[in-house]
């Protein structure tokens, strides 16, 4: 599958460091039609908050994925890092 024409976004996700939170994010991202181009996850052991930075691409608007990730119980917040990637179209 060619990804050349897909919109690319970088998401910054803050989450409680709970069981399988990373798997939940990955499952939702795949199911909602987004490819994962890269990711990084770190946990602040002081406050048990995980910060996940994820680059995704899709034909679909990023708002669709943000809303679905936001619904996950352990998520504290999701935002698009507009400066990180060149999007064909920014819809968040």
């Amino acid at each position: 599958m060619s990804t050349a024409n897909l919109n690319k976004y970088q998401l910054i996700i803050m989450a409680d460091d709970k069981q399988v939170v990373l798997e939940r994010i990955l499952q939702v991202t795949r199911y909602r039609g987004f490819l994962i181009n890269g990711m990084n996850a770190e946990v602040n052991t002081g406050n048990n908050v995980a910060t996940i930075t994820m680059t995704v691409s899709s034909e679909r608007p990023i708002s669709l994925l943000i809303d679905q990730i936001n619904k996950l119980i352990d998520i504290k917040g999701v935002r698009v890092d507009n400066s990180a990637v060149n999007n064909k179209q920014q819809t968040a």
Partner: protein
Amino acid sequence: MSENKVLTGGGLLFEVLQEHGVQHVFGYPGGAIMPIYDALYDSDVQHFLCRHEQGAAFSAVGYARAAGKVGVCLATSGPGATNLITGLADALADSIPVVAITGQVPTAAMGSDAFQEIDIFGLSLACTKHSFQVTDINDLEKVLHQAFEIALEGRHGPVLVDIPKDVQLAEVTERLDKLSHLKNKVKLPLADISKALDLLTHAKQPILYVGGGVGMANAIEEVRNFAEQTGMPSVSTLKGLGAINPDNENYLGMLGMHGTKTANLAVQNSDLLVVVGARFDDRVTGKLDEFAPNARVIHFDIDTAEINKRRAADAAILGDLKGNLPLLSMELSISAWQEELQQMQKDFGWRYDHPGENIFAPAVLKTVSDLMPDNTCVTTDVGQHQMWAAQHMSFDDPSNFLTSGGMGTMGFGLPAAIGAQISRPHDTVIAVSGDGSIMMNVQELATIKRYQVPVKIVLIDNAKLGMVRQWQDLFFDGRLSETDLADNPDFVMLSQAFDIKSQTISKKSQVKAAVEEMLDHDGPYLLRVQIDAKENVWPLVPPNTANDKMMENV
């Protein structure tokens, strides 16, 4: 924390269930959940032994939907847990609050491919609203409280709690003094009320599009008041049936693939859709690009993710429907629109003057609907009989019509009826099923026998997988592939084997007396209704087609 009597994990489970008002649970024991079943022995919670874990899950769903409470089911590890999955997926698709408890192999054995070990925690991710695996007894109470809170918070849904055997056996001496609540993730309403009022004021041909969220938001009264005060014609999704009083002169019936002609034409010609607790499901919209092409949209929902998911909203109002909808109530000057649709209702009304002596399934279901007592709860399976029930039966509350909407799960109807009957022992419960669907969870006839659950079963029997056969006839050149069920068992004899009174009818002249006998019978009853295998469900909007291009009795 406060000191209490010593409890095992299993004992703690039942104490917490009772604190959440749980009186009944549905389940099936097995090796990795034996400590919980041992604790059940001393508990006041009543357990119903289903004959398959899928039956337990659907009984919990039916219980939840009929009673407006959380349904609870139990299963052991491995195959017991995986057998719950279809029920949990069904509950997720239809936003039903269910808490599923699964036993797991001991923590020391986890990850070793132990006997009856499966990663149900991993499997649960796609079919639950949330899930937990409790590996420390000290976390169990908090997790159980959170499971109930999550199941009921915002948009309802199923939650799974996986408990390893050693945690079930471990002792706990302290209970939580104070519960820590989840952060409130339901967002405040967007400030679109003034825009919505403006859209409503200028609408000439508005339609109120009512979904299953209305019942779950406990907003039936508010939606009915809104429909009355505005005089707005209304349509319902499959799950919304019962939210609008079916006697309302501006109510047009179900929309979508098997919706009424008037409902679909009205929506297609509308200039404003006021959408309450609905999500533009593909079975509702037909070809999405051509759905209500000239309508602006006011969308009320509790779930942010449903706004703009399939159809852009001109005004989105998030949050509690019960509080938000009255903000839009006003009198509208739409008498010409009302009269046009009322005339269409007369022109396109259902007809029951079917030729010949054979039984016409829509007429049977209309008869059942006319004769059943007030507040009867009807469940269905999935297929032609489901659509005929939705079209030809009348419901005055969504909790009186339980059907698998989003997932479309054959096998739902019988166990859901058992759950509904247990939650509402004084109401009549009728399971409308088909000869294909009933075989999916036929083992639950044993649950009916065991507890003498007085469910009435109306079995619409065409010896076919009727809906698939209909599509094969219409869209696959009549190549009937694997849809003949002429070798079904003798359903009357089968029922009798479970001490369930039963009879078969095949002529129109038998219908009324047979339905009356079924409804008058004290215990469970199965009425097998033989119908012509070639009957189709009409109207039908073909796949990926606009809703005004429906097929009618071809």
